């Protein structure tokens, strides 16, 4: 009788134990998006795509569904970041927690040290910690390529740059753009303006009009949603053009495809996927990782222009503006120059 009880107890203990060993747990990904949320056709959607692609690979490996692998949240407000980071980390369920957006850095600096065994990734900002990988991109490279297009295609020899605020991130864009324009066309003048707001296209349009009226015929910028105003202003006059930022904006704002010549690209999707796959392959490490043309990864920035995929940096755009062949050739020269170090960009 005693023996039977022992056997039953042993079975009760062992069976679930063995079962759990038999089916290895798929590593789970926790994704905390930036406040713009999904559907922004930009930063968040791209980050989600990267995480989703990685999740699909993991799911296929472990024979589970993508939903089992990837959990994501869309914070409505900056104040919610810390709560979600704590909640995800505290659950202990996630092999890696990916935080999107520079404004998650401040809460992550508080949360990450509390969970030293939890792997974190932050995109677009640097957080120092033994368990945090910071993903940054060489934004100035996409800006440089846009500058090349502007420098080649301007007819007035004046081009414009519209930034959201004069902060290091945006100054990097501005410097890349200016150097690109002057590399392609030494005679070009670059007007630089800042909106002071990230989500005010009305003001963005007014600032763009000012630069167009001052002689600029192509305007690039990094001003979030305020940049949409540049496209609206460009529509008001023949010969006024604009360049998109981070994603192919001729595709995301198709009504302005007639004025958007090209768009700089920031391949957040590739960077996020790469970080998650490093975790899966066991090569994940804390630290700062730069993605871009001139990095160990060799990818992360580029430009959407023309109607052909030229190489991994120059991909096709939905733009309706005719781009001469010389411009594409010059872009190839520029991308190669950046990659082999003959073109040095001061961000």
């Amino acid at each position, binding site marked *: 009788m005693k023996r039977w009880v022992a056997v039953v107890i042993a079975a009760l203990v062992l069976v679930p134990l063995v079962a759990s060993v038999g089916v290895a747990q798929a590593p789970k990904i926790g994704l905390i998006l930036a406040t*713009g*949320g*999904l*559907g*922004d*056709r930009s930063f968040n959607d791209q980050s989600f795509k990267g995480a989703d692609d990685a999740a699909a690979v993991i799911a296929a490996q472990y024979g589970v569904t993508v939903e089992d692998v990837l959990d994501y949240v*869309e914070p*409505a407000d900056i104040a919610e970041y810390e709560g979600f980071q704590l909640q995800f980390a505290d659950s202990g369920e996630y092999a890696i927690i990916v935080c999107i957006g520079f404004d998650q850095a401040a809460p992550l600096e508080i949360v990450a040290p509390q969970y030293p065994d939890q792997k974190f990734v932050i995109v677009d900002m640097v957080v120092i910690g033994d368990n945090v990988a910071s993903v940054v991109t060489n934004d100035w490279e996409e800006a440089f390529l846009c500058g090349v297009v502007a420098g080649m295609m301007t007819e007035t020899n004046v081009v414009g740059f519209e*930034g959201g*605020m*004069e902060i290091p991130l945006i100054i990097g864009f501005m410097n890349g753009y200016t150097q690109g324009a002057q590399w392609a066309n030494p005679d070009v003048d670059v*007007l*630089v*303006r*800042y*909106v*002071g*707001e*990230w*989500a*005010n*296209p*009305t*003001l*963005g*349009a*007014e*600032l763009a*009009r*000012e630069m167009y*009226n*001052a002689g600029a015929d192509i305007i690039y910028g990094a001003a979030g*949603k305020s940049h*949409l*105003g540049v496209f*609206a202003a460009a529509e008001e006059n023949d010969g006024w053009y604009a360049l998109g930022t981070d994603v192919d904006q001729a595709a995301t*704002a198709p*009504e*302005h495809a007639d004025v958007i010549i090209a768009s700089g690209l920031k391949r957040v999707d590739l960077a996020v996927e790469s970080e998650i796959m490093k975790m899966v392959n066991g090569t994940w490490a804390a630290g700062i990782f730069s993605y871009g043309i001139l990095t160990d990864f060799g990818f992360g920035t580029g430009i959407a222009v023309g109607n052909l995929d030229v190489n991994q940096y120059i991909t096709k755009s939905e733009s309706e503006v005719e781009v001469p062949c010389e411009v594409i050739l010059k872009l190839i020269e520029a991308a190669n120059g950046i990659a082999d170090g003959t073109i040095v960009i001061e961000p």
Partner: protein
Amino acid sequence: MDVLKDIFTIHLVLSALRLASPIALVALGETFSERVGIINVGVEGTAVLGALISALVAYFTGSPWIALIAAPIAGGLAGGLHALWCIRFRANHVVSGIGINILVAGLALFITSSVWGWRGTSTYSDTINTWYITGAALVIIIVSQIFLFRTKWGLRLRVVGEKPEAADTAGINVHRTRYIYTILNGVLCGLAGAFFFNSVGRFTSGMVGGRGFIGIAAMVIGNYTPVGALGAALLFGFIDALQMRLQSFIPSQFSIMLPYLLTVLVLAFFIRRANVPAALGKHYVKQ
């Protein structure tokens, strides 16, 4: 001298007019409602609502003109809600106004994400030229100035804000008057919102960006008169347009600050005797 010639062009004037238009409309609306004794700090949210409804109606009907009619109606409803709260239920005016701002902020996120799947932003729709709205604003302001100070209705509404008991004794329906002009405030803010939408053809939740609050400041600087409000709005618009041009010469951080700094300075040093209506923010209970 050449630099000055580059800055002070016709484009500077046009830019100032464009930047001033929505502020002037909000300031005019607030002038009406405060003249009858109702403070409405919900003008910011009401303008956001006007822009949102413009985008929504333009998206579903495809007609920017129908959208232009819908925006003031939506604004009027928000004004009506505020009036109901403040007059019927005797809520604190400021609290009710803040409530409208928060309500609209939430509504904007909800509507944009459920209609366009894009949080805080709409897709593009065709627009009308914003100069129509600017032109209308100028006409409305001049008419309002005459209405307020040269007609018996203007006199009545001013009495309601100064001494509601006297108005009541004279047979003026205090509550009805307050309802009418608070709703009118909403209508004008809705029109300001339509200006924001039509300036770029889409809605974003940050596009009003505090211009509604600047409208309240413009009303105070304008000393509760329509033409004064226009002048204050034009001053702000002019400095804002000027700072964009000055960015070539001075750091952007200072430049961007200028219009706001100026507003604070003018409010602090030049407005010695504001004509604040005596019954402003007070509930009127019939004896």
